[in-house]
């Protein structure tokens, strides 16, 4: 193992160690102090960042633009007919290295911010466990050399995000929103998994270097036909749309703002929301292989951007407005990818947007204070002038658009009406039929569960 590879492994190992330490302490019911948690987080993030920067330096010096670290087979079955192996492989190239460094810088900044922001919060430890899980997920997804490893990181990001949205779990609102975010993520995960299985079936490989050619990113040619690329690409696009809150999954993004501000900033404003576009960049050769797929990507990106602009303008709280501003930019980045612009353009766009949005979101709690400072500096109140568009569009149409925007495009309402309620109706009907059947067999009421009280009663005295 070379020094370069050791450093590459360090990028993954340090965040994993952080997760192991914080998770184990919680599991054995020995909560760590804020000081210890904060120190461990600092060490892990700085160590990981240093490793990533050294990997970059080493790659620049050596001229190697595609460093692959073969960890080995995690699981292998030497079956003569259908061999199976789950290969652990990490790739450091011109896509993953900037993304890893961006992840470390932003999570490190937010870790320091959260340390103050959540000081003496009852859920301080829980926040940092989920933070560590998110960091591991982001790093593993960024440096994944196979689609299975990417899925591993992808899932960790999803779970930590959903649980962080529900961080203030004593209120029902954040919990319901967390459940909603998780639902969208599960759809995205399912699409991702089916895409991975399909890729295996079509090409017999999950290794990116074999799927996309051995050339370093962004070069590479997908080893599949246009039709195959279209099918797999659409599944990956659904996965990316779910993770990046593109239409029709945009409803979860404002809901995610129920979480604590640090997590909103780094997860939904900066990193998590870009993971979908990162996936599209990683499988860029698949998009190149199908012009129709590229058109779909462009349309989805532009429509999400337009949606973000319209809906974002009518939001009355700053975090939600920023969420839609994020969506607009993510939509544009997606369109850039679909348009086939040089891949560095969307990558630079991601990095710039993530940094700006993180700054805006961490400043959000002090927005009024910032406005006052600004107005004091100007010496006058800030005025909201109607834009050129507002003057051009007829009043009735403006009202219609306003209504559409205030209802957030009815996306959640449509999902509720056409997916969730019919689903509930069908399976409640099945449940009713089952009840009738067991009542018939029993000859009396068969369900004790019908008499279970909704609220938990005071426990029996004997427990005391």
């Amino acid at each position: 193992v070379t020094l370069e590879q050791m450093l590459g492994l360090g990028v993954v190992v340090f965040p994993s160690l952080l997760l192991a330490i914080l998770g184990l302490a919680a599991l054995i019911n020995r909560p760590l102090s804020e000081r210890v948690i904060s120190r461990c987080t600092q060490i892990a993030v700085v160590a990981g960042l240093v490793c990533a920067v050294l990997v970059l330096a080493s790659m620049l010096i050596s001229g190697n633009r595609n460093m692959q670290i073969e960890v080995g087979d995690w699981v292998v079955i030497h079956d003569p007919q259908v061999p199976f192996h789950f290969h652990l492989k990490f790739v450091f190239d011109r896509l993953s290295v900037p993304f890893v460094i961006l992840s470390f810088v932003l999570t490190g900044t937010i870790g320091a911010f959260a340390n103050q922001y959540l000081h003496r919060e009852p859920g301080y430890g829980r926040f940092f466990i989920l933070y560590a899980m998110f960091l591991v997920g982001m790093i593993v997804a960024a440096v994944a050399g196979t689609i299975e490893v990417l899925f591993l990181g992808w899932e960790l990001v999803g779970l930590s995000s959903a649980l962080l949205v529900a961080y203030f779990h004593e209120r029902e609102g954040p919990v319901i929103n967390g459940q909603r975010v998780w639902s969208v993520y599960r759809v995205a995960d399912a699409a991702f998994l089916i895409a991975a299985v399909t890729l295996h079936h079509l090409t017999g490989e999950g290794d990116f270097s074999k799927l996309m050619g051995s050339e370093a990113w962004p070069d590479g040619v997908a080893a599949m036909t246009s039709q195959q690329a279209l099918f797999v690409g659409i599944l990956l696009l659904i996965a990316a749309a779910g993770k990046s809150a593109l239409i029709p999954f945009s409803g979860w993004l404002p809901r995610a703002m129920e979480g604590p501000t640090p997590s909103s900033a780094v997860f939904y404003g900066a990193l998590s929301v870009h993971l979908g576009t990162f996936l599209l960049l990683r499988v860029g050769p698949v998009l190149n292989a199908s012009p129709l797929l590229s058109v779909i990507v462009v349309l989805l990106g532009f429509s999400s951007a337009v949606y973000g602009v319209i809906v974002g303008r009518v939001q009355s709280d700053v975090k939600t407005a920023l969420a839609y501003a994020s969506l607009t930019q993510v939509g544009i980045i997606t369109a850039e990818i679909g348009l086939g612009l040089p891949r560095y353009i969307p990558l630079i766009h991601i990095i710039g947007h993530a940094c700006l949005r993180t700054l805006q979101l961490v400043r959000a709690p002090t927005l009024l204070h910032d406005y006052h400072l600004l107005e004091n500096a100007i010496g006058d109140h800030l005025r909201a002038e109607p834009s050129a568009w507002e003057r051009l569009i007829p009043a009735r149409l403006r009202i219609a658009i306003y209504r559409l925007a205030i209802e957030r495009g009815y996306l959640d309402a449509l999902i509720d009406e056409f997916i969730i309620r019919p689903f509930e109706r069908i399976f409640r009907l099945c449940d009713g039929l089952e009840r009738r059947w067991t009542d018939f067999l029993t000859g009396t009421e068969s369900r004790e569960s019908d008499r279970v009280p909704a609220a938990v009663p005071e426990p029996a005295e004997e427990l005391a």
Partner: protein
Amino acid sequence: MTILHIPWIELAILLPLIGAFWVRWLRDPDTAREHSLWISGLSLVCACAAWLSLDTSRPSAALAREQWDYVARWLGRDIFVVDELSAPLLPLAALLFLLTELATLRTKVRRFSFASVLAREAILLATFACRQPWAIAILLAIGTIPPWLELRERNKPTRVYVLHMALFVGLLFAGMALQPLHSQAAAVLLMAAVLIRSGIVPLHCWMTDLFEHASFGTALLFVTPMVGAYAALRLVLPIAPDWMLRSIALLSLLTAVYAACMALVQHEARRFFCYVFLSHSSLVLVGLEVATTIGLTAALCVWLSVGLSLAGFGLTLRSVEARTGRLSLDQFHGLYEHMPMLGILFLVTGLGSIGFPGTLGFVGTELLLDGVRRIPLVATAIVAVAALNGLAVLHAYFRVFTGVRHVTSIDLKLRWPEQVAVLIFTALILGGGLYPQPGVESRYHAAVKLIEIRQQRLAGGNNVEPGLAGSPPIRDDAAE
């Protein structure tokens, strides 16, 4: 004499059997609990030793069995033998019983029959260690009696359970009796019996009914070892033609999807658990469809992961129930601050069952998907099941543990025995997830043997009994 010269399997079965009689005579429930824990613990040690003796030194073990296998001498044939299929199932079953007893609160010991639990443990271990088809059928039939006795004792309705189990036992014995006369007809009857015991839709209502009326512990111990799948592998797989396996797999897949959907609309925690379990356990039978080594390996891996994860999941719910009574899922109960460890275990076990990365179930699900990748519809359905169950698990977690903090004057914290049970489950689920190779390898060897036996049977080989699915027994090795 080395440790391999001891009849570990027989000891693992006899200890709880004798213990059941012993514990029945004890008047003090606390003493009964303590003795039961010791007996189950020793049984677990014996089951582990039996597993190790299979993997390490076969020739010496075989010699030891020549000297010590009184059961075989008495009955004239090997009844209890550990092979690759049953080797990990025995410790898993023994562990499940031990942890259930361990996690039983002292406030519940008066109402919890430890004698009955030990008797059920002996029956289950005997079933898993058995290789003779008729003996397996008889043990499967005996295994259905203790839950019925408990239902009667609690004055609960028994008709749903009795009707289904009577049908199961009837079909099982009819299939066994018909086997020498008409192999295919016998296979059909045995398949029907297996489907009933596995709770395949629409014959699943006995399972929800059992969770409604029996104690949670009894229902859990009756369903989580998945003896239906065991019967499928021992009795049906070696003789069933491909179309029959495909039928089992299709019905199982439909059950998995249906149960996953039903779990999402349940109002009560036990019924929710029952459907989640049903959904996952059905996936084990899906692996049969492909009848390839990878498919079967996947099914066996999913079996272990689901057995462990959902047993832990069920015990977590049982621990919560022990403090609060039966739980409605219509409201948020806000129990996290009272029992954070249970909250974490709930997530770990629940996510382990859906195959979340880093848990025992992840590799099983990946293998299952790899095994069925040539059948895109099946792969899509499996992914959908995992997604739906993921939703259901988090939904239940939020309902039970989040919400306005539950106000109580009583300390609801976890007691140390429960903490031990929690940590053992977590260690196994996460440890198996992070280092899955030994488990997968062992399941692969079992799958290879199962396929070999099946091919020999289908090719008309008469020297292989259907119950011999799995590797040849230890004594056969020595004879070779």
